[in-house]
């Protein structure tokens, strides 16, 4: 979707205002810690994947997305996911009282404190086989397709219609556009190099290029 999250190339946000590295805490408030922990712990219940989760944050009103701090966006996304998957009802969320306990089928996936480190260390690899051979080879010129799906996609606006060169083949990874709908299929994933002027015209920085990971569905021969 052409949402407020797709920020590459936008103007008007001003300076970056980085805090000094040595002084910046990992979290800036206790509530941020709890949102972070709840998001990961609730994710273990397997009612959504990372693409569904990203899409939940992206689907906010653009003004809200840009007005919220980072963990406010996580909180808004988490509440949306909990309600859409039926883990909690709107009434429960409003009253913060449980109408009924979660079912046994859910509780067996509940993340226990002693399993946290093992779960983090294992991660969840995104590799998944595809049923076709790769269409492109290293060095091929490709155009990022000019497409504007209303659902989740990882093809940023600033590359659409632009020509680049296949720089790397990453193998077959879960395709996010369908994964965000709950359908897990593997598709070929490529690293594509775009020269600065191809993306930014006469406003490009000198001697610069942008590398973007793009699934085969996003690409056509150029």
């Amino acid at each position, binding site marked *: 979707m052409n949402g407020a999250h797709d920020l590459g190339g936008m103007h008007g946000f001003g300076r970056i205002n980085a805090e000094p590295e040595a002084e910046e805490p990992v*979290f800036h408030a206790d*509530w941020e810690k709890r949102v972070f922990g*709840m998001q990961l712990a609730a994710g273990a219940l397997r009612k959504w994947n990372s693409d569904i989760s990203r899409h939940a944050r992206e689907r906010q009103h653009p003004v809200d997305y840009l007005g*919220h701090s980072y963990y406010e966006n996580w909180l808004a996304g988490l509440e949306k996911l909990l309600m859409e998957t039926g883990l*909690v009802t709107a009434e429960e969320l409003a009253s913060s009282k449980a109408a009924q306990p979660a079912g046994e089928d859910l509780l067996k996936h*509940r993340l*226990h404190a002693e399993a946290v480190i093992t779960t*983090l260390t*294992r991660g969840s690899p995104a590799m998944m086989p595809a049923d076709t051979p790769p269409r492109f080879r290293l060095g091929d010129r490709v155009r990022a397709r000019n497409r504007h799906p209303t659902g989740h996609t990882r093809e940023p606006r600033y590359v659409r219609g632009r020509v680049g060169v296949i720089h790397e083949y*990453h193998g077959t990874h879960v395709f996010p556009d369908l994964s965000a709908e709950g359908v897990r299929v593997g598709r070929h994933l490529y690293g594509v190099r775009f020269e600065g002027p191809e993306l930014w015209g006469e406003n490009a920085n000198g001697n610069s290029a942008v590398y973007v990971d793009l699934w085969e569905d996003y690409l056509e021969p150029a």
Partner: protein
Amino acid sequence: MSREHHHSHDHTEPPADVVLRVKALESLLVEKGLVDPAAIDVLIDAYETKIGPRNGARVVARAWVDAGFKKWLLNDATAAIASLGYSGRQGEHMKVVENTPHIHNLVVCTLCSCYPWPVLGLPPVWYKSAPYRARAVADPRGVLKEFGTELGDDVQIRVWDSTSEVRYLVLPERPAGTDGWTEEQLAALVTRNSMIGVEQAKSPREVDKPS
């Protein structure tokens, strides 16, 4: 927060109702049995005290002293990094990109906040902020300048936009004047920002050489 509210800063001075909303949500999830509050505590502690940029600094320092490891790291970063004990969530598919006198690499996620957690921990606020995500791809030299990093036109800037589950780590150049330094001494020169690519590694002048 209302849609009319103008949010002029990057991070977080939440209205009190956010604090209450988070407390209410956690008590609801705990009451329903969906989350274990002790698991949340362990998750927080892991990223506050265990999983952070010192991990990445050890990877970089090893690559600076061990040519075989560096070759492995550039060819199969996930395996090479795992050999030092760092793996898992948000680092399942790692790629390391090397700075040279003629190439400077910079990592961003324009679409959200993808970042290599096992080696760098959770991202700083500025990395997740709109100005960085908007500008890193379109004006990388301007971004670098804001971090005090000015590079000549003979240095090619390569920006890596983390649009897939591949996570990028920059291998900064080893600073001059560090011949004979141990891995541990070198790791003290490797900042988080140098592994994102907004800065160079520190020079020996900037640190007290650790013993």
